[in-house]
């Protein structure tokens, strides 16, 4: 199993704080700009990087990530280019974990074995595939785990106590708790119930629990950081990409810096969290 994720969470535990996970859609608004943003993420405070694999029909995503996915595809994004982007990043950074998030069809079309081989070779650490529940583990989850790729499962508010063990069974790296019933970037999560849910998941697993969906501000990041091992922000970041486009839809001169600026302020949230963190 790729060790970067485990090493990063061990380091965070030693520092006594939660991690910050920055989500970007790979290739948004174009390959070079996207690579430049990713390059700058670790220094801006991202402890883990989550790269969206653009898909034409992102059923679980809200308008922000839908739009970013379409921008990337229009600019020529493909799964091959996403893997290349990570390969380039890995040449200069061997510590920050990179996980890919998206939908199964582009991987299926690429060929599962070829994809796993290329992903491992490029230094990708894990996969979050929205439309592959444990019921379909044979498609990708089991072969990915065998090849040493972490398969990070989503747990939802609807995942009850009886189902949770099944969801966690073939999960590795960390568990991604979906903090709301809904799509990415929608309603704000209720901190108290997120805390209860994270505690519930932790009774079933020793894996770290990251929380995402609907988290937009440094204050929310700090609140969630008090009850989880990592906090994911996506829609708010890709919104800055959207706002940084010029009239022709091309990246404006300050786009990279604006995105990294937001990441810095969000990442400060995990470093200023209230100290009532539970051990473990």
């Amino acid at each position, binding site marked *: 199993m790729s060790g970067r994720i485990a090493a990063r969470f061990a380091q965070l535990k030693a520092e006594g704080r939660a991690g910050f996970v920055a989500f970007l859609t790979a290739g948004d608004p174009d390959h070079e700009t996207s690579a430049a943003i990713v390059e700058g993420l670790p220094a801006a405070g991202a402890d883990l990087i989550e790269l969206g694999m*653009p*898909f*034409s*029909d*992102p*059923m*679980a995503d*809200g*308008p922000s990530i*839908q739009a970013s996915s*379409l921008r990337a*595809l229009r600019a020529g994004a*493909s*799964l*091959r280019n996403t893997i290349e982007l990570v390969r380039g990043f890995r040449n200069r950074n061997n510590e920050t974990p990179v996980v890919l998030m998206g*939908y*199964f*069809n*582009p*991987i*299926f*079309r*690429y060929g599962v074995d070829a994809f796993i081989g290329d992903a491992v070779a490029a230094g990708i650490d894990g996969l979050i595939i*929205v*439309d*592959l*529940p444990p*019921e*379909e583990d044979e498609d990708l989850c089991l072969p990915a785990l065998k090849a040493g790729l972490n398969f990070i*499962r*989503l*747990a*939802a*508010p*609807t*995942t*009850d106590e009886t*189902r949770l063990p099944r*969801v966690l069974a073939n999960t590795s790296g960390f568990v991604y708790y*979906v903090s709301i*019933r*809904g*799509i990415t970037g*929608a309603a704000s999560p209720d901190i108290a119930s997120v805390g209860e849910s994270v505690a519930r998941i932790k009774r079933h697993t020793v894996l770290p629990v990251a929380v995402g969906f609907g988290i937009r501000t440094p204050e929310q990041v700090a609140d969630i950081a008090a009850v989880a091992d990592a906090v994911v922000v996506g829609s708010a970041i890709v919104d800055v990409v959207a706002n940084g486009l010029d009239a022709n839809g091309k990246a404006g001169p300050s786009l990279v810096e604006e995105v990294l600026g937001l990441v810095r302020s969000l990442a400060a949230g995990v470093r200023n969290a209230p100290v009532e963190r539970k051990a473990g």
Partner: protein
Amino acid sequence: MAEPNTYRAGPDDHGHFGMFGGRYVAETLMPLILELEKAYGAARKDPGFAAELDYYFRDYVGRPSPLYLAARLTARFGGAKVYLKRDELNHTGAHKINNCIGQILLARRMGKTRIIAETGAGQHGVAAATVAALFDLPCIVYMGEVDIARQEPNVFRMKLLGAEVRPVSSGSRTLKDAMNEALRDWVTNVEDTFYIIGTVAGPHPYPEMVRDFQSVIGREARAQMMEREGRLPDTLIACIGGGSNAMGLFHPFLDDPDVAMIGVEAGGKGVETDAHAASLAGGRPGVLHGNRTYLLQDGDGQILEAHSISAGLDYPGIGPEHSWLRDQGRVEYVSATDAEALEAFQLCSRLEGIIPALEPSHALAHVAKIAPGLAKDHIILMNMCGRGDKDIFTVADAIGVKL
């Protein structure tokens, strides 16, 4: 591949038809999908549910729909005898109501209080809005902006029935995007909402459940044909978008080796162009909307926009059971173009006094191709799955008539 001893046993316990089907949905929906599977499993074993379904089929939908010998079409083609299964005479004008009655009865059993649906041509949206009105449940129908523009009469019908029609402006603004948006609604409102999917696609158990509700078409046709001709038909023909009317007609005959079956996909401007909706002719296996099936997609696995003059067939996928039946070789799949469907639409109107929907006009276009070459004692049974009132603006526009 070994021939199975039955074609009617699918799906397996995991919702697979061979390599197709399955449950490719977000975890938030998974517990609900399992609950639905359980509820449907219990309902289908309950004679009370069957009795309720029969009651609404008979007294509300108007079933059984007639089996009609299309004598003038038969004479014109000069070959095979052409029968039409008249599902266009159902309440709301298409086969879609069969499935909606079934699903809303199930929604009520499950205690759901809010209905959502997606629609392309608007026939499924109208049927969903109809049953929601009948059972006094709020109903939201997602419909692509392109389809709203070309199916105005059905949009107004849905509104009259009390449904809210939510325009979908993402992607190609047609049926696939309406389905994405309905799934997004569902994931947000899982507790109280029942999603009435309109075709034999989506995550298990939908393909099986919709097929079962639509199989009333094939069961009736079988009995009617035995009564009329004393034997089974030689060839079944139905149009295919997602494929629910075809699945409903075909399924009861799948284990009758002497009955040939042909599914007709929408060839748009030609399957050799990039403007068609023939997922089997021009697609490859992939995963979308909860199931693995043939999809129109590019080399990177991005879903392509479909094209058909018929909004109801304008979908880049097809139900997983059709994908399996095609790979098994049990059903033959062909296509008819926009132009061929338009011609069949006009021919049927003039010769039989039946204005067909553009969807079954594709099926009729194929009947017109093969019937002349078949013997006079060859019986073709075509599913006339919808009526064409909704299409008159599209057809007028296509043939250059200003209304």
